[in-house]
């Protein structure tokens, strides 16, 4: 979900995240709330439209996760 938001230029609508992450609507809502609670994404309401963006904490988490993913992948393991 966070990768989808980043791919969309750090500003993604719920439907984009839904299709990009291949989730059901219930799961999407649940995970978005969890990510907001963790402080890695922010919700923005602009002109009646809702968007989500990564916080600085979220960007740093994603970068760190990518590093670990690359590290594991170098040995042939998937995260």
């Amino acid at each position, binding site marked *: 979900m966070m990768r989808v938001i980043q791919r969309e230029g750090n500003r993604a609508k719920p439907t984009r995240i839904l299709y990009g992450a291949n989730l059901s609507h219930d799961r999407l809502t649940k995970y978005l709330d969890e990510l907001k609670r963790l402080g890695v994404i922010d919700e923005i309401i602009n002109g009646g439209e809702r968007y989500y963006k990564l916080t600085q904490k979220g960007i740093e988490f994603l970068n*760190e*996760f990518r*590093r670990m993913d690359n*590290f*594991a992948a170098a040995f042939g*393991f998937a995260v």
Partner: protein
Amino acid sequence: MDSARWFIGFGFDAIMELISFVIAFAVAYQAFKGYRLTRERTFLYLQFSFVLLAAGLLVDGLSTIFVLLARTGARLLGVSSLGYTIFFFAQLTAYLILVCAYLQKTRTLAAESLALSILPVLPVLGYTPTGELILIFLLFFITAQTLINYSVRRTSGSLLVMFAFTMLTLSHAFFLLMLFDARLFVLAHVAQLSGFVLLLVMLLQVNRSA
């Protein structure tokens, strides 16, 4: 060992092992960070494996330096032999953990069977060709896995890891053959250090990218 005397006499083997210890510890730390972030068991396997390698390298390196500095020659060879024995068992366990990690992906009992089948032939103390053969077997399996990984992913990281384990396998082949030519002892240590340096390059590359 006469032709390798200069190498041992100045402690180059120990210095190389201590450098390798630092690198192995860095890999273990990276794996620890990965586990802390993701709670994936894979990172635990990598962490334990490289902590064991680091500990073994440290012990073997320090025991060699101790014997050199003590300047008592043959009397303390037992210390050096013990150091190598600890290092051997550390490597054996570390590489077994890695083999288990690769076999876990196939969800078979092969990992446990492999570990148990090796136990009866373990050497008791010090360097033995049997021990080297066991390590070569384990390292060859790991190297093959990394080769397959590289053939699929084609990333520089996977290439570096493949070459790293190739060098480690080669180092043990040299350790095995050094009975026939003592100069191979030097090559063995160079190959071993090269393997760890390649892992360091991979680590630096991974930490630079995101």
